[in-house]
């Protein structure tokens, strides 16, 4: 089977698992919303919250990403399905792309919720002129996060102490996305007088990031999951 067909098969399977179990909807989304509320408790200043809202949205995304990646691979390792996929000769590159696709779709939903929470809780206001930049930022950043999450999730999946290893490995790597996506979102929302033109260079960085880890992950995934 071609890599792309496997990717579609695996992605459909992951989304179906989510459709039937609702773990992301019932547990991860409330967790993310909770994090947003906790930020408000910690900062306790509405003006400050509005100012730092883009950063908090992306920070909450990073925390939720860790949980989602763990869920994504718990599904594979709970009953030895990852081993079975390997025995079935399913190309690792296809598994990688498929799981990243499903993770990206779930991340996109998560981010809509987080953006909604920012609008409601932090008085964030969307600016008409920044919508294109905002959507592009979300697409590029989500793609990159989905790739990195799947790559390091696969590496940690078979390991002892995977719950603690995953954030240690993954969070330093996603730092450029946190910085880039936050700056671009600020530009799109006009935070502190920023304009959309300030945001576009960051899109370049986000796209490069997604490209590097997309290609790297497709090539390297096999050696990382092979125990």
């Amino acid at each position: 089977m071609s890599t792309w067909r496997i990717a579609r098969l695996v992605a459909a399977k992951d989304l179906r698992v989510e459709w039937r179990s609702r773990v992301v909807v019932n547990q991860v989304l409330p967790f993310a919303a909770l994090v947003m509320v906790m930020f408000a408790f910690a900062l306790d200043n509405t003006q400050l919250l509005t100012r730092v809202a883009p950063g908090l949205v992306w920070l909450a995304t990073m925390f939720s990403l860790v949980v989602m990646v763990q869920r994504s691979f718990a599904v594979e390792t709970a009953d030895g399905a990852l081993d079975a996929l390997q025995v079935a000769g399913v190309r690792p590159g296809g598994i990688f792309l498929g799981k990243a696709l499903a993770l990206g779709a779930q991340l996109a939903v998560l981010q809509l919720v987080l953006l909604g929470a920012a609008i409601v809780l932090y008085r964030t206001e969307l600016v008409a002129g920044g919508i294109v930049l905002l959507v592009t930022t979300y697409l590029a950043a989500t793609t990159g996060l989905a790739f990195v999450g799947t790559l390091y999730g696969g590496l940690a999946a078979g390991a002892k102490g995977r719950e603690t290893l995953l954030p240690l490995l993954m969070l330093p790597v996603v730092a450029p996305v946190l910085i880039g996506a936050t700056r671009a979102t600020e530009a799109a929302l006009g935070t502190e007088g920023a304009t959309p033109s300030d945001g576009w260079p960051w899109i370049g960085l986000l796209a490069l990031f997604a490209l590097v880890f997309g290609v790297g992950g497709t090539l390297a995934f096999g050696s990382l999951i092979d125990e």
Partner: protein
Amino acid sequence: MEPAVQPTVRDAVHPAVALVDVVAVLGSFPALAGASLTVQRGEIVLLRGPNGAGKTSLLRLCAGLLPVERGAATVLGCDLVADRTSVRNRVGLLGHANGLYADLTVADNVRFWGATVRATDHEIDASLQRMGLANRLADVPVGRLSAGQRRRTALACLVARRAELWLLDEPHAGLDAAGRDELDATLRGAAAAGATVIVASHELERAGALASRVVEVVGGQVRELER
């Protein structure tokens, strides 16, 4: 519905499994300590032996999951020392784990694993039928099934995979009398169609009647037994 196996020229030359003095390690423990075993195509071989003797490791090694540390090993003509991934897709492994997705239904699981070899809908239905699952059970999530029903589902997935070499680890465990009969009939049918079957089992009476040859695994080594 029998597995379709088209022997190639290479298959005629090479035995299904040829292990010579194979050592395989789990961490620093030599699970296999110089195991040698030759299995011809179409044979049904029973592996017996005490717990911890290395039966599971032997099966995992043949499936290309466990690396060959020392010695020589070819499975279906593929050299496992040079590239243990080369044999994948041509073998089917039923290990201790079932390799099922607990949130998906029985039919979803069989369909997913069947799709990895492009099984048709007809073949999927036949696999379910074979293991007595083509009824109301087909639409029940695997997580809600009993251990025996899960085992049946895993076997149905294996049937749908149409492997040339079937590796089964304690397949009888957890099955009721009807399930065992269906399993035995399935394995006989597979062997008759040209597939090779290696079964590790403590059900010596039942599996012994099924097998064309019995070997004993003790201390990470293999010994032939008189029939």
